């Protein structure tokens, strides 16, 4: 629980937690998670790799990013779908500054095709994950501060330390603000 928060970010957004729904249920197959799935070619189906918390953490701490934003979503989750374009926009806008965005679908395993379809419709051309394994292990394994509510956005610094957790739908401004704070702190870092 190493939370290094250095500055205050004003928060003005409510979290009206609206979720739509679609039925689903069965067992996740034990999957061999891979942090580096093959890069998707333009026009190819989005790559969705099964991952547990450890695999997602591996992708978070992989070198090369100054800030990492993890967004956990599901196709049946209305607010997840609503905020999704803003997640992609902040990625597009801040990738050059060192932002890595990691998308994790929390769809049940038989919902994978729906998730791929959604990612395709959203124009996601980079690899992402679909959660496998036990829910509480996944939630606690990623962030103890996360209640498990969807959507969830976890922001980490370049060293893989968790900096912020947001539950429920967020705006572009919030996503951008969280990332910029981490980027700014990272570049201004001069002491312990």
């Amino acid at each position, binding site marked *: 629980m190493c939370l290094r928060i250095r500055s205050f970010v004003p928060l003005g957004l409510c979290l009206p*937690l*609206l*979720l739509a729904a679609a039925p689903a*249920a069965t067992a996740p197959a034990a999957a061999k998670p891979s942090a580096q799935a093959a890069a998707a070619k333009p026009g190819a189906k989005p790559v969705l790799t099964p991952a547990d918390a450890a695999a997602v953490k591996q992708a978070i701490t992989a070198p090369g990013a100054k800030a990492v934003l993890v967004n956990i979503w599901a196709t049946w989750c209305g607010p997840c779908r609503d905020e999704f374009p803003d997640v992609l926009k902040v990625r597009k806008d801040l990738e050059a500054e060192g932002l890595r965005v990691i998308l994790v679908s929390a769809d049940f395993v038989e919902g994978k095709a729906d998730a791929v379809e959604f990612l395709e419709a959203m124009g996601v051309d980079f690899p992402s994950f679909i959660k496998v394994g036990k829910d*509480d292990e996944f939630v606690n394994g990623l962030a103890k501060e996360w209640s498990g509510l969807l959507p969830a956005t976890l922001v980490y610094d370049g060293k893989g330390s968790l900096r912020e957790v947001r*539950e429920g739908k967020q705006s572009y401004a919030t996503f951008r603000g969280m990332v910029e704070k981490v980027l700014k702190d990272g570049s201004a870092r001069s002491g312990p």
Partner: protein
Amino acid sequence: MRKSFALVSLLAVAALAFAAPVFVAAALSAPLHADDAPKALAIGTAIPMADQKMKNVDGKEVAVADVKGAKGTLVIFTCNACPYAKAWEDRIVALGNEYKGKGIGVIAVNSNDPGKVAEDGYDQMKTRAKEKSFGFPYVVDSTSNVARAYGATRTPEVFLFDAQGKLVYHGTIDDNSQDPEKVSSRYLSDALTAVSSGKEVPVKETKAMGCGIKFRA
């Protein structure tokens, strides 16, 4: 600066001890969580809004106080629409029906705004309760204020109180929503067993992925 660091460390340690990281965020005034995120009841807290009447699927008005059991009371925030609530539904009903006969009062509360999710309307609740043989009330939290008072945010999310009405368990049903066969930790079942025999609940707080409660404005 040094002083504030010391304070921060102290608070962090305290919060760790209470396993309530939300407090860390609040104390730092740089919330890790959004500042309006509800805070769930702490273990040991008394039943909030116990006398609040809510409309049951049988048309009668029921309060949590009305169903209170001699050995404990289980309050389940759930709904019709959420895939997680559906995945756990049979297990929730089985546990509720079983422990109702063992001195535990049971009530399921739907706090979702049907204006946002039509599947959570009163008629649909009546149908679901009948289909799934709910042996306990399934009530409408018509303002969503009961969920707010509990700090409940998800469905399903359960709160178990002991004979004295103090919270002894809060969280999820078990550790595998999707496959009942693969469950290894039966958190709610274990808590119910403990409470109904007057013992201490082994695991008091758990988490799980879930749908957000669709609060009424």
